[in-house]
């Protein structure tokens, strides 16, 4: 009866089985194992995080509402285009201020390759945007240009932010178009 309740043998099945046999020396001489080719197996790994935006959360709420907010040090007026809860110089807490997401291209690239998550979107254009009201830059996507026509002349071109209608609560809820004069 004990054997039935706590069986000593694992109930073998085919789940996870990837190979049914491997060559192995039949006798006592194991020296040939030093010449064995390495075994390489698939090892999947997936995680779903409950990720908090913490003190930066209002920024994403603003994007969802079609508005763009930056962080300003109350005394110096130094303004961060990318959210930052505390100023790097004074150490003071920053305040949220709304700005118009229009500026110019400070730097850019066209990614023809990328991380696995973004491969389906290649080629895509990354830009660092310079806003008049800010002292720092903002990383975004430039949409509506020919990625094969990249030119250093893109730097300095005016851009305007557009908001996704259905927010994903990511910084890509805002993207940029060239502002045609």
């Amino acid at each position, binding site marked *: 009866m004990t054997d039935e309740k706590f069986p000593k043998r694992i109930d073998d099945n085919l789940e996870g089985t990837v190979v049914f046999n491997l060559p192995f020396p039949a006798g006592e001489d194991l020296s040939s194992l030093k010449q064995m080719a390495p075994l390489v197996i698939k090892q999947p790994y997936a995680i779903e995080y409950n990720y908090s935006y913490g003190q930066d959360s209002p920024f994403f709420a603003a994007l969802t509402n079609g508005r763009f907010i930056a962080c300003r040090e109350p005394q110096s007026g130094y303004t961060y285009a990318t*959210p930052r809860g505390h100023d790097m110089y004074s150490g003071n807490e920053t305040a949220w201020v709304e700005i118009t997401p229009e500026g110019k291209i400070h730097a850019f*690239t*066209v*990614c023809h*390759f*990328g*991380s*696995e998550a973004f491969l389906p*979107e290649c080629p895509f254009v990354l830009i660092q945007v310079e806003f008049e009201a800010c002292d720092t830059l903002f990383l*975004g996507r430039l949409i509506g240009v020919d990625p094969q026509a990249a030119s250093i002349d893109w730097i300095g071109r005016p851009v305007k932010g557009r908001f996704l209608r259905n927010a994903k609560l990511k910084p890509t809820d805002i993207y940029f178009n060239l502002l045609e004069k």
Partner: protein
Amino acid sequence: MRPVYVVSGGVSKFTKARPDKTFVGLVKEAYDYALADLGVEHPRFFELVDGTVASYFSDHFTRQLMAGIMAQDYLGMCPKPSHRVEGGGATGGICFQEAWKAIASGYMDVCLAYGFEQMSHVETWKGNEFIALASDVSFDYPVGGFYSGYYAMMVTRHMAEFGTTVEQLAHVSVKNHINAYHNPYAQKRQRLTIADVRAAPMVAWPLTRLDICVMSDGAAAVILCSEDGLAKLEKAAGRSLARVKVGGIGRGTDAMRMADRPHQSLEDFYKYNALPNEMDADARAYYTNLWAKGFRYPGVHSFRAGRMASREAYKNAGIHDPLHEIDFVELHDAYTSSEIQTYEDMGLCRYGEGGAFAASGKTFMPGLDYGLKLPEKPACPINPSGGLIACGHPVGATGLMQGVFAFWQLEGSIEKHFGDPALQVPNARRGAIHSHAGTGTYVTVSILEKEA
């Protein structure tokens, strides 16, 4: 601080994939080479070594937390003191400096620094994703996380600010790949032309596949010691050892998001960042003119962390004119562009002159045929080993690999280790190693010197 010496080093062959060994096996290869070259067997070395520092970048690649203790265990170093360091691409350089600190502070007389990365366990695009997770995951990664893209944005700004050209970038690739042709440890030993580099597949405009280092499997180990440690090791080895001293170290940092980097005034640049060789009237006039044109420092075109690391290391080593007082540099050229940016950070040329400097010939090895018309003679070979672009970049090992190659240069033993004398820098007395993390967040510079 006490004097610190490098006495031996070892490197595993860097290659795309080493499925024949786990990471501990790779570290063992590098360690065994260092011991064999020292002429001391493990049981005797174990009696003499006071502790170790382990270096690897990403837990994702190994899918193994606490990998440092596994290497410590496999090397037979337990129960000696040890800790792991991590600082992105600069991990190996930080490891070297932590071992230096252990000796310089008097905590240890002999310290082993070892590092590794086994990046082949995932496909390249997944590896790019792991590396991109070393950018701000709230604001940078989701926009298109890709480090080559981040560096390419820095390049376009450098081009716009200074007129740097893609051909100048390609000079770095040609130089480093041809140097590596003579380095048996290098992953990519290729004779390239400027046209080859530009015709390679575009990865992140304007950087092609030949402007960018590759992922690698590899390990490296360096043994550092004090005067007393050197005496003990010489006794164990039964011979005199080369006296290669660490003349000074420096380290700098900058904001994780390059968007947050400051755009400082000329006054602040001179107050906080300028090097001794930028203090004369000529340099001041040059920079005044640059600022008048709208240049701001460091922006996204320059690595302030690299400048601060250089500044501190030069101060500690007594260097005032780096181009003429350093005989070679092994620097972190994950991208051709970052090598050019680093020339400027290290004061080998002024900010804005990096592109022309790259194509001048000053950074090339004497005596090698690069198939290029170079207007000037070599002055300070940069990456005589081939650098990251050609040697590969198994992240945790890379900064230590630089330490090993620099030690061999100063020991005058390149021919012995490479089986080829071509990469021996003539009369090398002082070299610098430079290790750099994501878009210039952590940077280390260490100066190695042959004692007279």
